[in-house]
Each structure stands twice: as structure tokens, then as C-alpha cells.
């Protein structure tokens, strides 16, 4: 399993995931530098992502949408805040109002830091995502674009709400 360690900081609403890939750092970086590759890994199963704009440079925008199984589109964007390829980059991830990718002020923005180091042809990756408050976290999950245990939890929420 590529995931080696996971940390939850409840007070700071931060999730840190460490992973190790059987690929050199340039190969890992290429996933983020190439929108077609990024699309293959970003959206959860059933919610393919499409990157419309892809500017991985400081101040650049990455505009994308995820399509639900029902065909509904969720528009989102990254504002790239720093790039040090292939060692890593930082960005703010937010939701957009529509296909013009105007940021939705009512939706939360998370700050993210991805960093990579290479050792013996393998790459260690550290992913850190931070949410401003509990409500932000809930809203992100409410977008429905989450896999794994979430499916169970969403069904539970529906049941409780019913």
C-alpha cells in the first residue's frame, strides 16, 4: 500500500497523508503538471474530473469540474500559491459558482501543500490539507464527491434526515 502514515489534527482541522510511490519524483510531478493525467487520479470513482484550465505556476489557476453519475457538474478551482517543481506546490482549493469558474463565496476554501522527495528511485509524498472551520469540512463532504466510508455515512445521514 502506498499510504504509509496518516495524521488527523482535529484542532487545526488538518489532514496529513504520507505516501510512497514506486516511481521517480519527476514521474510523480508529471501527474500534476499534465491535466490529462491529473484527471485520471483526481475525481473519486463515479465523479470524473475535467480540467478546463491548467496553469501550474505561482498565482495560476486550475479550473475543473467533476461530473456526478447523474450528469450534474460541480465546478471547482485551485489558486496556485507556490510552485517548486518537482519538490512540491501549494494551492487553495475552492468551489466555483458556474462554468465561468467564479469563486463561490459561500463555499469553503481549503489550503493544501503537496511535497515530494526522492530516495532510491522511489518518491515520498506528503499531502497536507487544512480547512478553516468545521462547517467548511461538512460542506466539502456534502458535495457528495467522496468515496469509501463516506458512502456509508451519507446513507446514514440521509436516513437520519428522513
Amino acid at each position: 500500500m502506498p499510504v504509509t502514515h496518516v495524521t488527523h489534527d482535529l484542532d487545526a482541522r488538518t489532514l496529513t497523508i504520507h505516501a510512497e510511490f514506486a516511481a521517480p519524483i519527476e514521474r510523480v510531478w508529471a501527474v500534476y503538471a499534465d491535466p490529462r493525467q491529473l484527471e485520471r487520479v483526481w475525481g473519486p470513482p463515479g465523479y470524473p474530473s475535467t480540467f478546463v484550465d491548467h496553469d501550474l505556476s505561482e498565482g495560476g489557476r486550475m479550473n475543473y469540474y467533476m461530473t456526478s453519475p447523474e450528469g450534474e457538474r460541480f465546478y471547482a478551482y485551485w489558486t496556485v500559491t507556490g510552485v517548486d517543481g518537482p519538490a512540491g506546490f501549494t494551492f487553495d482549493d475552492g468551489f466555483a459558482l458556474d462554468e465561468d469558474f467564479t469563486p463561490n463565496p459561500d463555499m469553503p476554501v481549503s489550503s493544501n501543500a503537496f511535497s515530494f522527495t526522492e530516495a532510491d528511485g522511489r518518491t515520498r509524498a506528503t499531502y497536507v490539507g487544512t480547512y478553516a472551520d468545521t462547517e467548511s469540512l461538512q460542506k466539502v463532504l456534502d458535495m457528495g464527491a467522496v468515496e469509501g466510508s463516506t458512502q456509508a455515512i451519507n446513507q446514514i445521514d440521509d436516513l437520519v434526515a428522513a
Partner: protein
Amino acid sequence: MNETEDEDRADAWFHALADRTRRDILRRVLAGEHSVSTLAQSYDMSFAAVQKHVAVLERAGLLTKRRQGREALASGDVAAVRSVGAMLTDLEALWRGRISRMDELFAEEATATHTDNQKD
């Protein structure tokens, strides 16, 4: 900040929700209190087996039990399910998915390269 405790909790959640029967039990008890014996009747397994599933959910902090006479009554802990920890656990699942899709991508390429080399 007690990191170990949070991780233990996340482990317990993942373990508890990794089982279909336990997810089903949790759905039922979140909708309302159920006696363990009523729950047991819903599944094609022994009372002891259902009791064991209930205990796993209880240890994960997703379910609470109280006694009423001879009955053990179980209810889901909605607050726990919706807590920040649970949300971070959800996000963790999303990130784990992304990471494993990258891993698969690299593995496919490694296989393709290997096959190409064999052809040469």
C-alpha cells in the same frame, strides 16, 4: 493535541465501517434505538455474531448501549458520526483513493515497459 488517540479512533472507525453488516446495523440504530435481539433477527447469523458487531461499533464510539430490564438497547451516536474526526476520516478516504489511482497509473506503466522490453 493527542495524535495517537485520534489515529486510534480513525483506525477504529475504518475497521467498524469496513463491514457491510456493521454499516447496516449502524444505519438502523442511527434511525432509532433498537434492542440487540431485534437487530439479531434481521440478519442470517447468530445472536452472538450480531452482538460482536454491535460491540465493535460501540468500541469505535459510533454506538451506545443501555440496559432496560433484560434487554440491551443500542442507539447510534449521531454526533460522533458527524464529528470533525469522522469528517477527516471521510476526507482521508478520498485522498487514499487519489493516491491509489496514482499508484495504479505507475504500476500500469511499469507493466507496459516490462512487456515492451520483452518484445525487444
